[in-house]
């Protein structure tokens, strides 16, 4: 029998993997994809607990998380293109234009 704890533990594992990727990778697009893994693990938590509690509100939250992720993808990828045009790289080590 699969309980809600199984889903919560799985989403904790996915969140930890996403955290590790964000902290270790240097390619900005890969970091972005690891953030998507973290967002999706939180979505899984929301839906599992929403079904456990018997309430629709968690699933509406997932809908809004997806909206914010779409907006983040549009703006973040446009930022990466603008940065690549200036520096010919999207390595996070080169992101130092705000330093002085």
């Amino acid at each position: 029998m699969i309980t809600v704890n199984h889903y919560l533990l799985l989403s904790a594992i996915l969140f930890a993997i996403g955290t590790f990727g964000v902290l270790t990778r240097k390619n900005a697009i890969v970091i972005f994809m690891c953030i998507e893994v973290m967002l999706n693990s939180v979505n899984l938590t929301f839906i599992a607990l929403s079904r456990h509690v018997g309430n629709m509100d968690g699933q509406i939250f997932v809908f809004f998380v997806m909206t914010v992720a779409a907006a983040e993808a549009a703006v973040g990828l446009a930022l990466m293109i603008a940065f690549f045009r200036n520096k010919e790289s999207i390595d996070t080590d080169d992101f130092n234009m705000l330093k002085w």
Partner: protein
Amino acid sequence: MEVILFYLTASVAVISAIFVTQCRNPVNSALNLITTFLCLAVFYIMLESPFMAAIQIMVYAGAIMVLIVFVIMLLNLGLAVKERYTHGMAGAGVLAALVLFVSAYFLGAGEATGTGGSVTSEVIASYGHTELIGRAMFVDFLLPFEIASILLLVAIVGAVILSKREV
């Protein structure tokens, strides 16, 4: 049967998530990320939320991943160089393990409480999941829904401005 499906899908999701963080080619990371999204859609169906599974596949695996793959193609990145082992990587590993340990500790320490809401399996079977979602979204959450539409409009305008050569 359900248990076997859960563990099979969970192992595929975890392994492909690990590959997302470790692949040297960003395109391979993107393909592994799509696999993770599909596994999560399977979980949503197992949790009796077919509408969220459809949204997951259409919006995440469809729209957002197309955007990411398109940008990878546009930037024409090569393979990442093999990263040297640093203390920063060890620290990141410790931090991620700490996140996992703390959440597993809290999961093991107690049970999820608060059962007994109005949306049970019978209600979902009789009304349909999409109708319940629509009722909640357009009655209880109408204002956040409108604000989300404004947010998307602002994001579109911001993306256009950022991508222009001369502002």
